[in-house]
């Protein structure tokens, strides 16, 4: 809506000549639907004006938590989904959410892990294990987030030493992706793998939270 000014009425002329008054109010009624920043004071929008049910800031949120203390062993030397617990897998797919340039996907995952020390003796030189986070785009393609996080079963990486890290610990990861263009997000998942299958990793409670932010 542009700048308004009214000076149509002239002295000595018939009032409302040429529909000037009508035109003024008609224009006002029409253009007031196109209010822009030139028409407003600065910082005039408050949180009460934002329609939060329309998700203006967080376009989509997905979370899942497994809190039933289910302890599950993982031994694979290639990546597999972290899928244990009564709540279902960390692999969650959903109706496609369209993201545009500048939109942000933020994915937090944390889990309680118990590195099994039984296989450490003689193989402490192969004591790494990894967790990585991914998102799915286009309904089929999985894309890595951040980096593959690396952890160890032992404190000494010499193959002749056995100094295990025993006990439960919680490991946390938060990664973001800032998109450079338009795509669709259709899922998330967390995966784990081991350097050597003798080093069983026992995974327990976990929680994940993913949100897509756009304003």
């Amino acid at each position, binding site marked *: *809506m542009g*700048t*308004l*000014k*009214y000076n*149509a*009425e*002239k*002295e000595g002329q018939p009032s409302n000549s040429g529909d000037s008054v009508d035109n003024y109010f008609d224009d006002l009624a029409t253009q*007031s639907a196109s*209010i822009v920043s*030139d*028409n407003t*004071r600065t910082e*005039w*929008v408050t949180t009460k*004006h*934002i329609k*939060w049910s329309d998700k*203006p800031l967080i376009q989509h949120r997905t979370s899942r938590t497994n809190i039933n203390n289910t302890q599950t062993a993982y031994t694979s030397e290639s990546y597999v989904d972290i899928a244990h617990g009564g709540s279902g897998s960390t692999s969650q797919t959903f109706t496609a959410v369209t993201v*545009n*340039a500048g*939109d*942000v996907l*933020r994915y937090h995952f*944390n889990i309680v892990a118990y590195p099994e020390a039984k296989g450490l003796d003689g193989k402490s*030189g*192969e004591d*790494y294990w*990894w*967790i990585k986070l991914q998102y799915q785009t286009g309904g089929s393609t999985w894309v890595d987030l*951040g*980096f*593959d*996080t*690396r*952890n*160890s079963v*032992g*404190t*000494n990486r*010499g*193959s*002749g*030493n056995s*100094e295990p*890290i025993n006990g439960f*610990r919680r*490991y*946390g*990861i*938060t*990664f*973001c*992706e*800032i998109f*450079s263009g338009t795509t669709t997000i259709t899922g998330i998942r967390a995966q784990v793998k081991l*350097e050597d299958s003798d080093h069983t990793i026992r995974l327990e409670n976990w929680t994940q939270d993913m949100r897509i932010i*756009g*304003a």
Partner: protein
Amino acid sequence: MARTWTVKTSKTRDQFKAEHFNEPANAIAAQFNGKLDQHNMPLDSVTHADLADPVYSDDAHGVDTKSSYMPTQSYHTAVWDIDNTAGLDSTEFGSAVYATNFSTDNWNAKWNSFPVSPVTEGSRLKFNAQEGMIFGGVTASVERRSGRARNQYGEGGNIGAEFNMGQSNWHELGVFVNGILCGRSGELNNGSYTVDIPFSTPIGTEFTSIEVKWMADQLVFFDGAVASGSATNDAYQQYICSGLFLWARNQFR
């Protein structure tokens, strides 16, 4: 928008005075010319479509950084993503990881910057902040290890005997916003761990630099020789990083 009212009420058969109409009409017009305020908009009326689209930029102040400037906030990320499975053998940490050996490399007794390239890609963020708050976090895979050493001649004891070394090593990560320590991991013990450190701080409208630094204990020197053989030997003298991800959100006031 303030209320306006008719100063001169027109009555039937009155003589028409132009200013009686022009002035009230211009008074209304003036309100639309930049004085509409929060009382002129219904509550719950701003939807997602009403907000400006984010503006994306990358590598603005360093490689492998991304930024998004949104109407209410800005997001910034930096990542050092390497293949940390490459070059592993029974005694090594991988060919591409960041590893400092305290006995041969330069390092500080307290906080150390990660070196420029390649690790800097994940340890530094720079952007133009607006007044408000910065919330963020760093996820890092870092490690220290114990090792083995051997007594030398003149050291007494059982000459040539091997023993474990550095079993009480510790290390720590810190996040600095414009030079102020805003988040730290606390002491981490031996082993490889992934840590997720949150941080937050008030911020003004200013150029902002966020940096991740590391610190490790120094009690790793032993006047002897590292042991040879299959056991990891000088690992107790090293600090290792195999991945970094730093992100920050600037929530505008």
